[in-house]
């Protein structure tokens, strides 16, 4: 959460990290970012992330595929965006929804 600068201190709040990682996972899963839940844990000084979100059904893609690409995305882009070292990313898919159906509801 940091940068040692000449004066003052730059701190990245854990909330900001959570929202960023949640958004990354949600994008891969095809679900709205605000509905993903993220928990951060310590893993010997590094970050372990658990993302809980729903996945959108898309033809030709299994829920497992979606979850795996979400995991890869968090591990690859998470450190780039937040500067944090992330060791593990757990993705929990708690439900599936149809993209078209949910669009129609709105």
């Amino acid at each position: 959460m940091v940068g040692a600068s000449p004066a003052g201190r730059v701190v990245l709040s854990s909330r900001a990290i959570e929202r960023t990682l949640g958004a990354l996972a949600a994008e891969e899963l095809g679900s709205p970012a605000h509905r993903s839940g993220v928990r951060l844990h310590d893993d010997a000084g590094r970050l372990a992330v658990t993302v809980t979100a729903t996945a959108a059904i898309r033809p030709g893609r299994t829920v497992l595929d979606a979850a795996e690409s979400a995991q890869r995305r968090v591990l690859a882009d998470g450190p780039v965006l937040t500067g944090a070292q992330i060791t593990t990313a757990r993705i929990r898919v708690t439900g599936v929804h149809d993209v078209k159906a949910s669009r129609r509801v709105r």
Partner: protein
Amino acid sequence: MNARTRRRLGNRMRHRSRSVAVSIGLWVAALPLAYLAVEAVLELVGAPALWQRPLDVVGTITGAEAVRYAVAGAAILAAVILLVLAFAPGRLSRHELADERMLVIVDDEVLAGALSRAAATAAAVPRDRVSTSVGSRSAEVTVRPTSGFDIDRDEVAAAAQRELERLAPTPPMRQTVRIETAGVIGR
């Protein structure tokens, strides 16, 4: 204030005074002697003794075997305690800081606080994640990192070293910096 006076004053404030031990020791030695003196005078003027005649007092405390050992044991114990108090350095947990015009003596907690602050700034963690313990000639700084963000140990050690050089405590101390393995999720 010349250098000698200054050093003496500094030493005085960094070491425990022996005056309490000295005064207790003197009282313990003086009271029995005063008692014996009183008995001796009473003996001389032919008045009845308060407890026993002077020579009988000595006989009583060295007579029965149990009493003799008890008295000897107490004397040895007192002697050991007094010798330790006399020869131990009696250092207080304080250091003298370098200052041109004044004699500055600080408690070690103050030094620990200064080192913690310097380390926290260098490590870019909140101040409450750094703890420092200061001994007479060494200081150990322990930093708890924020999960996901590595701390450069050398950088923190350099900051602690700079702070030590700035304060220049007497007696001089070495610092060691330890970064804990487990991190904390930041706020």
